[in-house]
């Protein structure tokens, strides 16, 4: 049994099932992300844990205690809302102190814990400001401080970084992880941003249409996506439609190296290869040749679209300083067998 467990948790709104039979066990101190596109049920799941939405079915237990029907005010969880939900008429310090006040913590103790928490989020000098006088990143840290100061057993984050601009978002990712490490609070974060989920979580839970489809460590999720949806949602992925013949994948008469599989002859499959796993070489040196139709410079790496007999293939190459092959150039493509996984064929693909 984990510290926080969800057992066949479901939520039905009218005739729409938002969350279906979700089972999850989170260990103490763990940072887990719920990842998925909007409408996949991740926020509803979070709200059920918080007590803001009543589950239709299933149970939630926290440290062995059933909290499924408990009022949100009694659960004692720390929640950071997407809009931050700061109290606009209270100062930063009053916002952070609110939860302690509700717990009837004595004044001196309250002041001490508030200033300690504001120190942790680097906002000590902003204690007397009002939320409207703060930047987006500062508001976000107030929201985190307010949620953490009550020393919650679990911290819930609802798209905490989505209202920040790109650069700030990256900084706050690490900041969030630093704060979470230093207090050691079990944390569940909802996000639709795969980069965010991969970079700061211990484990990532992918949700599709109300179901959990994969729970794994970030690198495993990236390397071994369980479904076609995950492989396209997490990172970029090339997908080559092929047929299994004689113990290997074949497309356009070419044999494609891949991990081993036991499939019947003639089965329609897809071969999935990450763009950065493909090796670009001089024409004739690889598995097959192709023509570079376009290339994009993305700072730390280059991205190429290569037209090949098996279709368009995306290849990425780290930026080594020199200019790589130009558009229109003939190149060869190749990859080691362990870099390509066999996935189910796309719907409608004929054998």
């Amino acid at each position, binding site marked *: 049994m984990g510290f926080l467990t969800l057992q066949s948790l479901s939520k039905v709104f009218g005739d729409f099932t938002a969350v279906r039979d979700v089972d999850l066990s989170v260990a103490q101190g763990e940072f887990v992300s719920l990842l998925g596109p909007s409408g996949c049920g991740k926020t509803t799941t979070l709200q059920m844990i*918080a*007590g*803001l939405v009543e589950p239709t079915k299933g149970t939630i237990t926290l440290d062995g205690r059933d909290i499924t029907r408990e*009022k*949100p*005010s*009694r*659960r*004692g*969880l*720390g*929640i950071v*809302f*997407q*809009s931050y*939900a*700061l*109290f*606009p*008429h209270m100062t930063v310090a009053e916002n952070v102190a*609110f*939860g302690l006040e*509700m*717990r009837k913590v004595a004044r001196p103790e309250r002041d001490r814990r508030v200033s300690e928490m504001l120190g942790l989020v680097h906002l000590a000098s902003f204690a007397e400001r009002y939320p409207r006088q703060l930047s987006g990143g500062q508001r976000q840290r107030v929201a985190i401080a*307010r949620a953490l100061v*009550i020393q919650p057993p679990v911290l819930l984050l609802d798209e905490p970084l989505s209202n920040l601009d790109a650069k700030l978002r990256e900084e706050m990712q690490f900041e969030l992880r630093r704060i979470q490490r230093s207090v050691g609070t079990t944390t569940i974060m909802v996000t639709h941003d795969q980069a965010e989920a991969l970079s700061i979580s211990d484990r990532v839970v992918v949700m599709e249409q109300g179901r959990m489809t994969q729970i794994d460590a970030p690198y495993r999720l990236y390397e071994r996506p369980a479904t076609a949806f995950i492989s396209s949602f997490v990172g970029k992925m090339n997908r080559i439609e092929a047929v299994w013949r004689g113990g290997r994948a074949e497309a356009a008469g070419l044999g494609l190296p891949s991990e081993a599989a036991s499939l019947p002859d003639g089965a329609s499959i897809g071969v999935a290869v990450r763009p950065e796993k493909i090796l670009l070489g001089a024409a004739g040196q690889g598995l097959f040749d192709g023509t570079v139709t376009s290339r994009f410079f993305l700072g730390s790496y280059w991205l190429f679209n290569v037209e090949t007999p098996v279709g368009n293939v995306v290849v990425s190459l780290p930026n080594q300083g020199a200019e790589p092959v130009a558009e229109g150039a003939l190149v060869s493509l190749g990859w080691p067998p362990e870099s390509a996984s066999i996935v189910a064929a796309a719907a409608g693909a004929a054998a």
Partner: protein
Amino acid sequence: MHKNGPIALLFHSLVVAFVLAPLVVVCLVAFTPENTLSIPTTSFSLRWFAAIFQHPDFVPSFYNSLWLATLAATISVALAVPAALAIDRYRFPGRDWLNGLFLSPLIIPHLVLGVALLRLFALIGATGSFAWLVASHVIIVTPYVMRLVMAAFTGMDRSAEQAAETLGASHWTVFRRITAPMILPGITGGWLLAFINSFDELTMSIFVTSPQTVTLPVRMYMYATESIDPMMAAVSALMIALTAGAMLVLDRAFGLDKILVGQK
């Protein structure tokens, strides 16, 4: 990038002149030393302002209106805040119908309301009662309060309430510490707008006031239909000054355009 041309500005000046003309004239005439309605040219006098306070009818009517507007606005807020809360937060049968009912005084001419209330008061023997006059003013000012309070409710971030709840606050604490302070601007704006509308109301009041409960606008109307002397201008100038003061307060506190034009 957007500039008004000379024709547009000329048009605008004419409109502004048209809007201000009667108000400016009233204020100038109020200071005349003459016995007739004339714009003072050589000297200014406060004699007509002094005359108001010696007039046996205007002072009681002023206090009457002041009390009436204060009570009507306050009662209206007390009724509209819970009603707006229910309509904004709950789905219940008859909700749309009730919303329409509370806003209906905006589309029912005050003339019709006055006539209808006169009939009711005559039947129940309440003609001339100050309490019933207050009640009828509550009716006509409630739509204004409702609109502003509703806008405050829909405009507020509901997750702040949820946040307070998850931090351990009870329902009542959430309302007292979070919801009420957040909708306070809407409530105050609604109260002031209700006060001004009640203080200025003529068409309905003229039917439901009695000689003992005559309000200031009714008194002024009666006075203006019978005799026209500069004292009327002095009263009007005072009313304009009062309104301008209230407007300034409203504008400083909430932005008058927001209150009169509605949420952007």
